């Protein structure tokens, strides 16, 4: 570690962070007002304008920031140590994402194991069931809520199973691409990366089809009780991550075509691939806990 310090790179001042902060500020403010207007059915549109403005600013920021970053990286300013910092930073970021999903998985487990059971009279809640929800029986999936809302439940055969296979395969193809990069086999890299992207898109398409099926045929909606809530929030946030991951993969693809990355300097690619594996692992947990069990 000793010698690496000498080469440490401290970037000069940069406008992008403050642009990013403005972008996030606008998004927060705009999203808040959009949601409020929606609730009051009083949308005059400025909330969502601010929101989209914020998103636009964020996009500009990301392009600018990454452009600087790529230029610096391409001109060899980065040291190994900075590579370590980026990699560790990315790992901790993924850890924080895991904790975010953990909150929703926690809600799912609590609902299944505790809330619904208690409403059905378990543990120290015999009176809860007797007095407040007479006739309610605990079961999971909760196809009939204590309040009486009914909905279907999502099975795991069919689309969900296909999707699981697709994502697992895409993780493998992504790995192949990575190996290709490390062996400096550009063709292997390009082809497998392309396949990964296609698989990601198929996954998203099927997920959309599954939502349509749930809404139209099962009557399972976001507001049909805790089963629907956890189902849509977990799969929905996962879907957002897949979308993001796919976008990242596409950017990597474009950069690969432009000839970026070398076998020992490809942090961005590696981060994307980690992210993709993470998204995959989350799906496997989802598949087990949301669909199968």
């Amino acid at each position: 570690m000793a010698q690496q310090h000498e080469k440490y790179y401290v970037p000069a001042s940069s406008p992008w962070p403050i642009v990013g902060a403005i972008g996030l500020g606008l998004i927060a403010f705009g999203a808040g007002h959009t949601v409020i207007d929606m609730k009051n059915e009083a949308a005059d549109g400025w909330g969502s304008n601010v929101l989209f403005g914020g998103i636009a600013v964020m996009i500009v920021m990301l392009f600018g920031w990454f452009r600087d970053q790529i230029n610096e990286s391409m001109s060899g300013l980065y040291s190994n140590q900075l590579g370590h910092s980026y990699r560790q930073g990315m790992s901790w970021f993924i850890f924080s994402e895991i904790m975010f999903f953990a909150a929703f998985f926690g809600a799912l487990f609590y609902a299944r194991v505790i809330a619904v059971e208690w409403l059905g009279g378990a543990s120290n809640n015999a009176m809860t069931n007797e007095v407040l929800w007479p006739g309610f029986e605990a079961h999971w999936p909760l196809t009939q809520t204590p309040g009486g809302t009914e909905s279907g439940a999502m099975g795991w055969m069919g689309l969900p199973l296909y999707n699981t296979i697709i994502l697992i395969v895409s993780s493998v193809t992504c790995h192949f691409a990575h190996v290709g990069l490390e062996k400096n086999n550009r063709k292997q890299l390009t082809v497998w990366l392309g396949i990964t992207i296609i698989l990601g898109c198929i996954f998203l398409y099927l997920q959309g089809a599954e939502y349509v099926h749930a809404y139209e045929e099962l009557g399972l909606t976001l507001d049909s009780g805790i089963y629907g809530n956890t189902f849509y929030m977990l799969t929905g946030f996962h879907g957002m991550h897949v979308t993001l991951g796919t976008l990242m993969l596409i950017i990597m693809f474009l950069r690969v075509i432009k000839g970026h990355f070398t076998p020992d300097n490809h942090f961005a690619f590696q981060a994307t691939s980690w992210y993709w594996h993470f998204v995959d692992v989350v799906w496997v947990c989802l598949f087990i806990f949301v669909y199968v069990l």
Partner: protein
Amino acid sequence: MSTVAGEMDHHDHHHHAPSGITRWLFTTNHKDIGSMYLWFSFIMFLVGGSMAMVIRAELFQPGLQLVDPHFFNQMTTVHGLIMVFGAVMPAFTGLANWMVPMMIGAPDMALPRMNNWSFWILPFAFAILLASLFMEGGGPAFGWTFYAPLSTTYSSDSTALFVFSVHIMGISSIMGAINVIVTIMNMRAPGMTYMKMPLFVWTWFITAFLLIAVMPVLAGAVTMVLTDKYFGTSFFDAAGGGDPVLFQHIFWFFGHPEVYIMILPSFGIISAIIPAFSRKKLFGYSSMVYATAAIAGLSFIVWAHHMFTTGMPVAAEIFFMYATMLISVPTGVKVFNWVATMWRGSISFETPMLFALAFVILFTIGGFSGLMLAITPVDFQYHDTYFVVAHFHYVLVSGAIFSIMAAAYYWLPKWTGYMYDETLAKWHFWCSLISVNVLFFPMHFAGLAGMPRRIPDYSLQFADINQIVSIGGFAFGLSQLIFLWVVIKCVRGGEKAPAKPWEGAEGLEWTVPSPAPYHTFETPPEVK
């Protein structure tokens, strides 16, 4: 324009800070960012403190005098939120920014641009939060703990703004924490092994881990509040199969580690100051490290001690009671180590030391009341009374805030290059010490006698106590203006500070001149 630190010895102009407003907007320098964090947190402290003054003024006498109950609740809520997320946490991040690279012999933070981003999110987040107070129906009025369904079905329209502002605060904290943790793991000078790191670095290392682990959970909690209120989900609604208590589990899974996030860096500060002014090495360095880790570890399994009255099964109550009590052991180890460090030292009483000593005593008092709260059957009586308010202000104000003051006095010479005015500082200390106790000590009695928290009006037997408390509150608030004065005076000039103004101080930060050069360790120092 970019620079490789190793080559920078040849580029003299880079040793000076760029000037003008863009210096602050675009900076990637850990010291600039640290200063911005510190000023921001101080401003937030004044804002949050002003809200506390509204609370204290309203509670000065029984009856409704100044504000209506709905506004009172907003004051309580936003006071708590601002003090926690706007004052204490950014102050610690500011200190980490300034001190961690210097203490481990690094040129800067590991990810300097992201560092700037983390900071600049905060003004926006808090502007949104404060702006929501002016909306129709007012801002958040459900306590800083925003229990559902008060924060969902029964809250005012502006809740969405609260939710999104917490989201971006969380993003800021997570990025800040990632930066600290990566800096520590990756940028230590040669020879600076983990077990040689100053305790401030160690405690922040662990704090950063806690932050990354729990801020996303808070994000999850506010997201569920958002969807419950606006999108028809029923996470916290029994009719849909959810449970309001689920909210509390998620919130406190974040919330309890959060309170340790607000105290662990303090432990690090105190562990730097007490040895310096006792002129004696810190007693039990490694046990300090292990104790910190133990506190952090335990903090994940005690959250439900905030929920003893929610009707959990007895087995759960007992588990959380025992686990909570256990935290006293590692915390005790720390307190004993500090006392042992002082023991047979050669003690002098400059202002940083005074604040540190006050910290040890008053934090311990707060810890004792914490232990009392942990005893489930008695917590049924204490819960949601001013006894709890007394507990957490002892650990937060005379704990966290005092440690931040101590840190500021300790490192001000290094930051500004000037010594602060010791006489004024002593005034600040003694005024604060006396008034903080007048402010918070009687709250214990009010709570024991049965005064609930979060009420704008109270029955007559609490009148005298509240009057004393309010007077203490005003006095404590005014005392902080002395601090503002001392800091401004010190920034503008004064007696020149030597590289190491404190005789007994140890650490790399004292090996560089005061004020510390814009880029500190371009060539890493050798640590033996």
